[in-house]
């Protein structure tokens, strides 16, 4: 794979890697929500600075992190253009009855900033948290719902397996694409009207192989004594350390400061 995709995990031993997944999930959620409740410039400078500090702490090369933003380039451009033309205000430029406004420019920029923050924060979460840890975190957070009879453990199990097969599927797609290109199929190159049907020879074998893998996996799980997710125990137990406590206080303090700034600025 030629780029680091959001959702991939990079093993490491940084303080960020060692934090409890529940703390990281909670913090990520807060960091993603804050720009929506706190629109002022000082708050957001503080917020962006904090995220950059986290990125440095994660030991993921900043350029690699920036390149993950390529995934949302088209979404970003669409959102920016949409805001640019639909926000009422002082016209800067009018083309055929539609105006680009100063306010539109600002709103568009804010959209891009929020989108980038969303991608960077979620990337940091997955880079520093293994899929297994994420699944345990989800399971632990949702545990109270299990008492209401919801299938939380099954959900966590499905999540673990799905995350585990993500790299495998990507490799598989890439291999089939190359194999069919070697037979002259136009998939990644050629005119668009030829490319779309070009994916049929990719998806058919992909589904066949996904089913074969699923069957193999089900057999292997059965052979290893899997019955249901309920009587299972876990190798890892999550327990909060002093570091987790400190990190939680820090992130809550950040939230409090930002809300205070917003309140003072009206």
């Amino acid at each position, binding site marked *: 794979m030629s780029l680091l995709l959001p959702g991939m995990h990079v*093993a490491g031993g940084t303080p960020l890697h060692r934090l409890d997944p529940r703390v990281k999930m909670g913090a990520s959620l807060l960091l993603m929500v804050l720009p929506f409740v706190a629109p002022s410039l000082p708050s957001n400078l503080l917020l962006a600075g904090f995220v950059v500090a986290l990125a440095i702490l994660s030991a993921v090369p900043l350029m690699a992190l920036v390149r993950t933003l390529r995934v949302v380039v088209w979404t970003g451009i669409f959102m920016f253009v949409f805001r640019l033309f639909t926000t009422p205000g002082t016209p800067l430029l009018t083309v055929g009855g539609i105006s680009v406004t100063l306010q539109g420019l600002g709103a568009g920029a804010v959209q891009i900033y929020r989108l980038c923050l969303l991608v960077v924060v979620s990337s940091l979460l997955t880079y520093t948290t293994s899929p297994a840890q994420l699944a345990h975190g989800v399971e632990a957070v949702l545990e109270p719902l299990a008492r209401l009879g919801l299938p939380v453990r099954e959900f966590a199990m499905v999540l673990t397996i799905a995350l585990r097969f993500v790299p495998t599927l990507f490799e598989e797609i890439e291999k089939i694409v190359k194999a069919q290109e070697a037979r002259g199929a136009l998939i990644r190159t050629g005119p668009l009207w030829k490319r779309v049907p070009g994916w049929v020879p990719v998806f058919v074998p992909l589904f066949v192989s996904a089913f074969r893998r699923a069957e193999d996996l089900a057999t292997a799980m059965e052979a290893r004594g899997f019955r249901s997710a309920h009587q299972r125990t876990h190798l890892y137990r999550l327990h909060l350390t002093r570091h987790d406590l400190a990190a939680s206080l820090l992130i809550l303090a950040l939230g409090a400061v930002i809300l205070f700034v917003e309140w003072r600025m009206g």
Partner: protein
Amino acid sequence: MSKKQALGNQALESQGARPFIELRALTHAYALEGGGEVRALQGIDLTIERGEFVALVGPNGSGKSTLVRHLNGLLLPTSGQVWVDGLLTAHPSSLWKIRERVGMVFQNPENQFVASTVEEDVAFGPENLGLPPDELRRRVDDALKLVGLTEYATHPPHMLSGGQKQRTAIAGALATRPACIILDEPTSMLDPLGRRRTLETLRSLNQDQGITILLVTQSMDEATAAERMLVMVRGRVVSDGTPAEVFGQGQRLREWGLGLPSALEIADRLRERGLNLPAGLLTVEQLASALC
């Protein structure tokens, strides 16, 4: 007396001399889509004792995988019986005990991993037994030590080499502390180093831990390393003996589509050219010393 013999004797006493695995007139038929059926196994009688190292060979489609999937109840007989450690696989209540005692490793290491780290994957079997975390930790550590992968505990399985993946799968089977491990062509996707390490691991598990091994393989050179060898052709066990006995049948092996270990093939050709060589030369070392 070696640990292995000791274990074997102990087993004989505790089980009243019943073999560890016993197949009685085992038949298995698959229904075909358009009606009719394929008889994949046609009346197999077979026993495997505790502590044996058995190789099972046969051409593709001869029923090897169908046979081994009966030994831990993944498949149930159409007729006949499968007994494992005194338990009948057809009894639903025995199934989980049988799967705890008979571990299984499959051909494609990629498709048998459940978790995203080596140690968590190894823990999957004992987690299903509902063991407490301390015990899980102990079993995972022990199993990884036995296959020599302790330092890879926190690696994601897909970053390992093929041989390391298969040894992870073996550790996963070991973690339920089984008496027997069945491996369905575990080396067919590995490079020579991966094969060698996997086989060394199996040999030491058999010798030092007394674990019964049933190895399905396409490689005749691998089969010669076993104590006992079974040949399957079209749903039947057509030959059962030491590798020397089985390979002694020369021409029949070719008819079964099996080929010969390299040393045996060279020895055959030398005999054709007039050299006088004793029978039962299975390895290059044996052949070389017979020639010198």
